């Protein structure tokens, strides 16, 4: 059963390859079949994830992968993000004339890499997963070719991503040089009785890992790529990157720092706390200045990376379930917000400024309501899922003594209310006529309904079903 932790990854990979084969023999025309196929494969992956949920903890392949509660929640979140991204892509691609079957193959492959990250228990797997998830994303970011912004996004993401990978691999090399280990549990054991001569190598290696993962999670000061890439990439891909990539990157952070570097907490907690503070302040602060929805969501994504970093520092009994739930809540709200953006977008232009949203709630009150729910969840207003998520992370950080961090967290939360509200204000209170657009496609409607109801009820459901003990 050593392969079991890899089951979701393998399903998605095999499915992606199968789709690729199908693409080769597919008659030209609509890619609806490919989208259905991708959805089916994602559902299969979810089935496997749920089936594994009852298995408890499984170590596999020489302890290089590990299935546990965290892996379950991370995999589930990634698959939710991927599923909704597929739903949103179907008509988005067709309307813009960039309908190509390989899109879904890349999306599934990226998700497979993320699923691998969720079970990583070895630095080599972390590296492998990071590369695996990144390469398809580079392609996806540029999928709206020949739109210049999209190509720019792809190139930027690729160059900076390659840089980050170099940091990661060099960090792993230094840790290996110092300890002879790549397994995270062994590394933790080594750190409990470290060899003083080799320690500096490990510290430098750890710092490099923090930089690389900070880049992927979009933490300040490694966040600069985010707004441009988010703005340029096709909107469903942006949502997928904001939600699922973040989940995978946080998975890596949890595995590497909470498990592998856990015993050295005293050393890295300071820098991580600084990063968290800078990320919350810069993310929320700069988001205030945005007038474009996608750029605003990019800074929002940065800001949430800050709250998640806070989760790394919190009391693990609260923080680990807290981070898992936060990621799921954040994924639902973010994917939902991008779903509304896809639904409201003019199919021929890419105007995502707040002006483009003015008054649309008059014609589409359902979309307006859903967007309000997503924004409230991202702020953290009860009873949405985002409220309970933030509550847990703040509680965890407070419990661990990070009072100042909690204060920064709540003050930036209030600041964030302003820019999230701007979207609601534009949609509900802006001047504008009713229903210029034919209205969103059923696939988009379905995504919005799913994420909307999920965002509204998930927090309460999660706590009713067991909450922290899940």
């Amino acid at each position: 059963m050593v392969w079991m932790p890899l089951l979701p990854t393998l399903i998605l990979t095999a499915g992606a390859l199968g789709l690729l084969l199908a693409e080769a023999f597919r008659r030209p025309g609509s890619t609806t079949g490919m989208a259905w196929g991708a959805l089916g494969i994602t559902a299969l992956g979810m089935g496997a994830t749920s089936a594994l949920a009852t298995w408890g903890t499984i170590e596999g392949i020489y302890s290089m992968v590990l299935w546990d509660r965290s892996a379950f929640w991370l995999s589930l979140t990634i698959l939710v993000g991927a599923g909704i991204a597929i739903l949103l892509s179907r008509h988005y691609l067709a309307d813009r004339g960039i309908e190509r079957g390989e899109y879904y193959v890349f999306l599934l492959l990226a998700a497979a890499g993320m699923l691998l990250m969720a079970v990583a228990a070895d630095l080599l797997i972390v590296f492998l997963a990071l590369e695996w998830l990144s390469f398809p994303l580079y392609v996806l970011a540029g999928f709206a070719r020949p739109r210049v912004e999209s190509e720019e996004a792809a190139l930027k993401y690729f160059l900076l991503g390659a840089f980050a990978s170099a940091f990661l691999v060099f960090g792993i090399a230094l840790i290996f040089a110092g300890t002879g280990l790549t397994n995270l549990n062994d590394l933790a054991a080594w750190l409990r009785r470290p060899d003083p001569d080799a320690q500096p190598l490990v510290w430098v290696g750890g710092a490099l890992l923090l930089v690389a993962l900070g880049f992927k999670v979009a933490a300040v000061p490694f966040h600069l790529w985010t707004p441009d890439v988010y703005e340029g990439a096709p909107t469903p891909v942006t949502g997928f990157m904001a939600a699922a990539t973040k989940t995978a990157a946080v998975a890596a952070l949890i595995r590497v720092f909470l498990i592998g570097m856990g015993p050295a907490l005293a050393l890295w907690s300071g820098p991580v706390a600084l990063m968290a503070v800078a990320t919350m302040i810069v993310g929320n602060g700069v988001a205030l200045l945005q007038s474009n929805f996608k750029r605003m969501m990019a800074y929002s994504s940065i800001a949430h990376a800050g709250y998640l970093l806070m989760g790394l520092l919190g009391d693990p009994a609260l923080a680990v379930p807290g981070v898992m739930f936060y990621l799921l809540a954040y994924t639902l709200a973010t994917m939902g917000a991008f779903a509304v953006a896809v639904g409201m977008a003019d199919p021929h232009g890419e105007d995502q400024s707040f002006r483009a949203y003015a008054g649309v709630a008059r014609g589409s009150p359902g979309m307006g309501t859903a967007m309000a729910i997503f924004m409230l969840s991202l702020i953290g207003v009860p009873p949405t899922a985002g409220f309970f998520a933030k509550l847990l992370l703040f509680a965890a950080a407070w419990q661990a003594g990070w009072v100042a961090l909690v204060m920064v967290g709540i003050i930036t939360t209030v600041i964030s209310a302003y820019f999230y509200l701007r979207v609601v204000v534009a949609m509900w209170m802006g001047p504008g006529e009713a229903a210029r657009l034919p209205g969103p496609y059923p696939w988009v409607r379905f995504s919005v309904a799913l994420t909307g109801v999920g965002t509204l009820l998930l927090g309460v459901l999660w706590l009713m079903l067991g909450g922290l003990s899940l």
Partner: protein
Amino acid sequence: MADFSILTWMLLLPLGGALLILGLPRDRVGAIRWIALGTSVGVLALALGLLLGFDPAQPGPQFVHHWNWAPSIGAAYRVGVDGISLWLVLLTALIFPLALAASWTIEDRVKEYMALMLLLETGVLGVFLALDLLLFYIFWEFTLVPMTLLIGIWGGPRRVYAAVKFFLYTMAGSVFMLVAIVALWLLSRPLTGTGTFDPAWMAAHLSPLLSQEAQRWLFLAFGLAFAIKVPMWPLHSWLPDAHVEAPTAGSVILAALLLKMGAYGFLRFNFSLFPTAAQELALPLAILAVVAILYGALASYAQDDFKRLVAFSSVSHMGFVMLGLSAMNPLGVQAALLQMVNHGLSTGGLFLLVGMLYERTHTRDFRELGGLWKALPVYGGILIVVGLSSMGLPGLNGFVGEFLVLLGAFGSAALRPAAHGLTALAAFGVVLAAVYILTMILRVLHGPLPERWRGLPDLNGRELAIMAPLLVLILLIGLYPLPFFAAMQASVQYGLAAVAQPIWALR
């Protein structure tokens, strides 16, 4: 899951009404309005049933519904009503049907409007009924969203500014309360295993363990959220904007109910959870209250806009409420509770009257009004009664509340040595109230009637029906307030046990 209590039905009914309305096609405006009104009348009927079944002798919560919905963090759905919340619940149940009836003139997006009003009703009732800190916070924040949308969509010219300011201002206070709730929960975890959000348990087992400094910080964190809501001077600046820009029903609910949530929070949580800090901070609280009384009255006098005048008078009246609460004796607190109801009736009534006038004249500027008694005799008569009630004329409800607040503050041990001086200053506020109310009456009703207002129609049947219950209660409380005090006495004495007892030991 315990038995459903009547209170749970009161919370679910407006929610169900809102969902029903959302399911209706938007052009069935008539049905939507009647469903909304019917739902809120149903809540009122339940509330009256509650009143009949209420046992005034029992100090603790009644009609309790307890359900441990989130066992892993110890959060419970726990609602109940006691003498402190009883009248506020009834006031809520009364004000909503009136506000909905006053919203008959809303024509734009009726469906959304009515659904939001009903959601707001659930939220406000929840705030007064919740006996669990997390549940309280959820309802507390939940009221924010519909109110913001009501102001922002159906409000006046500066509605978006007012709505966003209202949201941010209130939220900035609330998050500190949230942190304090989290801190209390974390402190309760070692004692209970999972932690708890039960304020009664905390008051009994946790508060005695808190250091004075911890109590002070937690008091301030809760207090900031409540002080913004009340609003206490100098945190009141959101209020004139929100009140003035909100649609009539929004102003009514804001003044009559949402402001009460802040004062209620002080009494329910700050006093019982942090008793020693409360005693220490009673005097600063009272000083701010007196400043609010005088400042609100003076600012009110300076207004040329009818609605702004009423808005600032709220600051002044809520100052009386806070003064009564900070007296921390049964007399002051009971008077404050009654004064909350009084303010709900009189200021709610004034906002309704402002709205009715505005619908006729489309201006609220005193400089364009005047002499209206000739054109609107019925309106004028009602305006005078409600105005005098707000002013505190003996025989009407305002007098009972304000007089007893002053009496309570005068004899307060918690406010010594400044009790007498503060009471004297606050009493001067009553004089100022006469100045701004009488000026308002003068400028609206007396003087020459401008030619263009000559043909204005007087109040119609719907509007009279809205004002009638308010007038009856204004007179009833003014002439025979005893039953109102009788119902709250036991709970107030019980609730004040923590703050009132050790005070003699301290000084």
